[in-house]
């Protein structure tokens, strides 16, 4: 479109535009944010698909993420190796899902994955306890944590197996009007 950037080919930019919820300008802006994390590791020229992965420590130190108690889970869910080390693709994907344009279903899917600490496709009681402790800085008493976990499973578990599947989670999150605005990182 007339801009003389040489970071991506036109085809790459088209692909990114179709695969994320960002415009060309935003994709370039995110690329520069990615590069700022480690300028010596990330080349300026991505036209020949370099294989660059930034370690989790750098991702977790971004101002948008560094105070989020779930930052490690977010990085693990969106990274290819599952350990939090992200390529540019993963980086763009993460912010695309967390942007304001992403639809509710997509966000619910990834939110489920984030809260599923043991990656067994279910949010069980231990996952819930870890979530609650992260939300309240471990300041709830054991009794209170137990009571709240029981109440959550009571409310959301539809198939009565004592844990939340993706469908239970999606069904419950659809009724939360503020989910779309809270599951949203502004970058």
């Amino acid at each position, binding site marked *: 479109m007339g801009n003389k950037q040489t970071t991506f080919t036109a085809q790459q930019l088209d692909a990114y535009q179709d*695969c994320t919820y960002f*415009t060309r300008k935003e994709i370039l802006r995110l690329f520069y944010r990615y590069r700022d994390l480690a300028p010596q590791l990330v080349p300026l020229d991505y036209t020949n698909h370099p294989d660059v992965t930034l370690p989790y420590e750098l991702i977790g130190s971004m101002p948008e993420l560094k105070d989020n108690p779930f930052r490690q889970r977010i990085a693990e869910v969106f990274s290819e190796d599952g350990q939090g080390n992200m390529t540019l*693709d993963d980086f763009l994907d993460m912010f695309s899902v967390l942007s304001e344009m992403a639809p509710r279903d997509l966000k619910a899917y990834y939110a489920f994955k984030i809260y599923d600490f043991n990656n067994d496709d279910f949010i069980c009681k231990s996952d819930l306890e870890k979530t609650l402790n992260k939300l309240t800085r471990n300041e709830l008493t054991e009794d209170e944590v137990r009571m709240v976990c029981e109440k959550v499973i009571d409310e959301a578990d539809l198939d009565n197996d004592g844990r939340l599947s993706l469908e239970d989670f999606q069904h419950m999150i659809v009724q939360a*009007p503020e989910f779309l605005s*809270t*599951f949203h990182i502004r970058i």
Partner: protein
Amino acid sequence: MNEARRRGPTQPSGPAEVISDCYLGDRRPSSQASNPRCPQFDWGSAPTGDEEGPQDLRGRPLSMSLKRAVWQVQQMRVPAVSKGESWKRKRTKLLRKLREGTREFLYLFSPWRKALQLIAGNFGGGVQSFFVLLRFLVLLNFFSFLLIAGFVLVPSIVFSSEGSDSVNVSGLGECMEYNPNPQGLVPFYSYVLDVLLGTGFVELSYLFYGFYKNTLVQGTNFYNIPLAYIFTAVFYIAFCLICIVARLGTTARVVVATGGGSSGNYSMIAFASWDYGSLGEKETKLKQKNILYRLQVDLEEERLKKQAAALTLKQKIILYSLRVILFFLALGLIIAALVGIFMATQFSQERSGQEGILGLIIQYLPSIVITAGNFVVPMLCDQISLLERYSPSLTIILALMRAVFLRLFGLCVLLFTLWSQVTCSGNPEEDDCRLCQYNHKLYPCWETRVGQEMYKLTVFDLLVTIATLVLVEFPRRMLVDNWSNKLVQKLGRQEFVVPANVLVLVYGQTVVWTGALFCPLLPLINTVKFIILFYCKKITLFCNCRPALRTFRSTTSTFFFLVVLLFGWGLATAVMTYSLAAIHPSLSCGPFRFFANMWLIVPTTFHTLPDTTKEFLFFIGSQAFSIPLFILLCVVLCYFIALASVYGKTVGLLRAQLKLEGRDKQFLVKQIEALSEHL
């Protein structure tokens, strides 16, 4: 640890089905060693998903590398599509580019985006919704001003040299006397007073109705200023309604779709309350404390509910009778405030001739009493509600309703008092009103006086806000920061209370709508006022306030505030309609001075139109056209109501089906266990 698990054999299906399987939670273990995401994509499938174009790709939960590979494959498949398909593809792509272009263009019309982001990150969505509403009102007022300037102000200035049409009315010479210019020498401070009160040199300016002439420009530039004035006022009100309803629609969609969100309180807190966009360590700690507080409060409420259910009959009777008494007490307080406003307005209008500082205070008396009432009465009602012991959510709603009631009815009382004085309580036979159909002794130009009252309300509101900022909020912060007295520390820093601030906005906007007919530049003044308010509130938020411990549900409350704004609009429209249709305009000033009421200019102009236009307009207004149109609209409305009810029923059915499937699955699992034990 991620174990390498093989995915079971699947039926080869089209990409759409596989993706949707993966989407809806395939419970078989996820495959492919180290990727915790769902990478299943059946490459061997035939290209069936041609209708879903590229825009569906980004909504799929695949890893980015997989998405790009799919995209490449889709691009390579392009020669295989038919001409119709490729045209459809191009059209969807063009539409998307257009949408993104408009999005970038609309960014021009969203000032303060960065500031709003910062506010949301530090103080949460509830506070941000206040500032978003404020920005919406600034833009609304600005565009209204452009509308009014374009159609009324600029033509008035351009054609101000044209002579005005003067009809000879005999016997009404007394009604035509109007000279707001001060006589003789004036003290130096009178200019400041004039700006504050809207009198003197300000009165004889384009700010007020009285200055506009009833110029009928003939010849090459045909422009009928009175007609333009009326139509602009009507269109301005309609334009505001359209904007608010559009905004209400987008908010209502979320509220209706999620069904109000009354169930699932704990799961909401656990999964939907953490704001991923919040920045800063302090704010994060505060949010965590906030969530802790909410959970503890909810658990406490449960306990209290159990207690309340266990109340004996005697205790229940006492509680309910207490509630009834307190309700009437609150009602009494509100009525007392309204009576106070009524008396203050009467007093102020009767003694309008006073000079000096005392005169200034008397002129501002209605505004002072309204502001004081709006400050004192909600505070007292808050104390009352502590005794009523309703649940916290009901308490908040009740407090809001009382405050809204007080504000809008206070304004009503002010307007009613003005009306009774201008038209001698609607009695044209009374002494003062017999000559000119309105009280020409007190009000030689009554529209300007009404406009001045609205102007004074607006100005006073702004002054009070700035004064509170400087005299109350900053000192409080300095006191709390520097004096470690226990009482002062308990008082603590200010909290930014969203509902009270939003009501201030709604009230200010209602005043502007009411006064726009009589003071055409009021939207411009209001734009400036709201811009100043934005910066003042932002400064106070960041410097003086601590984030609220109890958060504020932003989505449902935004809806409620827009509804309250609509009430204000309704009040303003009622006032405007009545002024246009029923009250005799002043004979000494303004563009309508020789008509029996303002609306009469429309039929008069109508009769001067050429015959074909007249016939066409008659046809549109006649029954032959309007009744079929009305029937058509009813049919369309019924269709949409039926559609909405069908969707609602479908949602209910699907929910029941989900529950049933869960139970079926449990039953089957038990059967399998029982059978495997036998083997």
